[in-house]
């Protein structure tokens, strides 16, 4: 279940999200303040939520193993077989 770095990262993100959205961390945002005219508490909730989604998207769309696959697929420049050229002008 937890083979690979990707899965462990997801579990960690899940745990992080669970902690962020529950007692007591959520209470930290409950202040009488505003950001850009929006009360802090709802703004923080939506920003945290959006951040979580962004991290998740980053983890899913650019996973480690997929990057590794790509580097393996890169064509080897040296492999291009050049036919032996005619003799050089100088010994």
């Amino acid at each position, binding site marked *: 279940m937890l083979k690979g770095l990707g899965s462990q990262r997801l579990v960690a993100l899940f745990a992080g999200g669970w902690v962020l959205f529950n007692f007591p961390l959520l209470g930290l945002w409950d202040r009488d303040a505003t950001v850009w005219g929006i*009360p802090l508490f709802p703004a923080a909730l939506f920003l945290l939520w959006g951040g979580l989604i962004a991290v998740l998207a980053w983890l899913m769309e650019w996973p480690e193993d997929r990057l590794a696959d790509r580097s393996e697929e890169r064509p080897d420049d040296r492999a291009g077989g050049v036919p032996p050229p005619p003799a050089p002008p100088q*010994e």
Partner: protein
Amino acid sequence: MLSPALVIASSFAYLLLLFAVAYWADRRAQAGRSVIANPWTYALSLAVYCTAWTYFGSVGRAASGGVWFLPIYLGPTLVMVLGWIVLRKMIRIAKAYRITSIADFIASRYGKSPLLAGLVTLIAVVGIVPYIALQLKAVSAGYALLTVPGGVAEAAHWSRDSAFYVALVLAGFAMVFGARHLDTTERHEGMVAAIAFESVVKLVAFLMVGFFVVYGLFDGLGDLFARAQAVPQLQQLLRLEQGGQFAWAQWFGLMLLSMFSVVFLPRQFQVMVVENVREDHLRRAVWVFPLYMLLINLFVLPIALGGLLYFGPGQGNAENFVLSLPLAAGQHALALFAFVGGLSAATGMVIVETVAVSTMVSNELVLPLLLRWRHLRSSGGQDFTRLLLGIRRAAILGVLVLGYVYFHLAGEAYALVSIGLISFAAVAQFAPVVLGGMYWKGGTRLGALAGLLAGFLMWAYTLMLPSIAKSGWLDMGFIAHGPWGLAWLRPEQLLGLQGFDGLTHSLFWSMLANVVAYVGVSLWRAPSGREASQALLFVDVFERTAGSSPVFWRGRANTQDLLRLCERFLGAAKAQALFDGYAQRMGVRHALALRPDARLVQFVETQLAGAVGSASARALVASVAEEETLSPEDVLRILDEASQIRAYSRALEGKSRSLEQATAELRAANEQLQSLDRLKDDFMSSVTHELRTPLTSIRALAELMQDDAGMPQAQRQQFVGIIVAETERLTRLVNQVLDMAKIESGHAEWHVAPVDMRALVQRAVATTAEVFRERAAQVQVQLPDEAPVLQADPDRILQVLLNLLSNAAKFVPSPGGRVQVRLVPDAQGVTVCVQDNGPGVQPGHEAMIFDRFHQTDLGVQVAHGTGLGLPISRHIAEHFGGRLWLEPSAQPGACFCFWLPRQAPSSGDKNP
């Protein structure tokens, strides 16, 4: 106010549009160009989670509780974080074993038990009835608001009640979408496409209303919030602790509840697992679906606050703000579009939910009962497909009618969100048995039955009964004082447990009872053979589906009987096609020539499971085959065999891989040998050519002298002179060939002595001075004041220098040639460069010129060369631990350099 005709016509037009989308998608699927086979459609279809609850209910919730509408979406977001781990496993299991519904999943895991499947179906039907009622209530309330003055629907007789007609119309559409034909995989391309479409519609409609409220009715978000902050009642809504202590337990409970619901609601399971086209689509859907939820919730709070500010606190039903705000502002078109969006949200939910539930009802509830009649089971050749479809259509209608009844019994007293949560709590009961079944091999059929039953009864007692009682259908004293006046049995304070709201209280007790019963009873007895085998297939699904999976079946069957069974439940043509395909894969010419072994039986059972569910399929196959009961020991033995086979095949794979590798190495070696052989031949021909040229002239001159005895002495002397020069050239050539061979074979003699490089360079230049003078070339020597003394063979180093200088002499232009010799010492050794202003080396040939075998043409071009000078020089330089290279200089001409270390490595003394 809008005319009823307009609203009804728009609604029908929209539903027809949905149907057109579905029809188009079905056609595309038949043509092999599926529109739902991409991650975006998949993600949008998951958004069927957002129903009329989200569309209307969330605003109502926000208007009374602020951020309390949010946990229902935060939970699913967290589930999606784990989606790639948990949901992918679920999808893999469902695809591997043709699971068609959540009931099928649970029953299949616990030994394909029909009883369990029936119980799950019953819980699902009872559980989602309130949820269906919610949709009916929302749509009919919306309709009333748009068309009835005052916006409140009068309690009408059912024949004049809009909710009743809404239910009927939706039932009709659900039948058209989900129960038109029978599919062995229970997949509905058209329906999924329509759902994805309606997800877009409801999102756009809601966002439009949001924009209108924020920027049309108010002066942006800042203005809206500033005005809300000024009202003490509204200011509370923007805070966590709204006057009292924040109910953390309820917040936690709602998140947990929604986490379970987003997976285990029958419609979510349908779109997420059953309708999934490719596992890989999950990768994108897990973040697009949460993003969708975030977007659709962005304006919930602003609309709620806007409504409260616009109408004044306590005025108007907050659940209808989405419609009433545009309507009050005179934006009739927007109000109509908002209604269509809400209709969209409700329709999508009802269609998928009823299709999923009808599949469960027909496969897991009705069919097993029908199969109890012997004549239906074994005899007769009638086609069951029509019967199955009929059952499904009836089930769809039945569920909607139940929803309507509940709406009238209890729905009117409750807020939308509260009704939905009752359903959430019911399907949450599936969580322990499903998750336990996926990760724990010890769960048994009895354990699952006990857990589900305990959880469901607890849910009914602590949540469902109070909801009915509060609607006035039961005595409220039952809630307040407990049945028979027993206070400890009060449904909302069971055993006197206090401090929770009704939902959290019910969730706590039902989950506790569920888990305790499931684990406790499972641990009471070891799993039977069938349970153990299914547990293995589920828990280790990633290993099982990778290679050859074990077949847990033993007995005798008849191919003809199996085919006939398939024909009855899948249709004759389809069954024949399936058998022919299977025979082709097995390499058998005719379907009836197939050996009725365990694999064929498993194949038939899996195909039937797609149409009638795994439990019914099990019963059907058992009715035509003579089976032996498997003991847990048999399961272990079969598993052992399978893993042995897998080990063998893995070993074989490994062997063939290493064989392939060895073959490749051999082939490479062979190619190298061949090329070396070819090069040797080239070299031989080059050497013999070189030898023949002087030999020819020697022979010709000697013959002339032999034939002409009276040749003048002067001419004879000239000829002899030429003969001597040619023989010298021959000797030089032969010496160089021998030298090369000696160096290469390691038999060369090296006389290591201190070498003064300054003196050596000067000596070499002096030796070749005559040659340069003949070609009228200038030689320029740059020597440092002091040069290090090397340990090397002075004759050999001189040979290298002479070779480079004579090369330069050959290639400089005859008048105006310039050659520069540089000696540059460094800390480790000394570099000597010979630069000429000749034609230089052709680009691309830099590496070739050091190859002795590529000198073939050079011999022709340069009469005096042997083609061996550079290779020999390089060998010498390398022998003393240095190197020789062609300087990639930008100037015209060639610049050859070699570098020698002060102290040759020990290998230099190898051959003294």
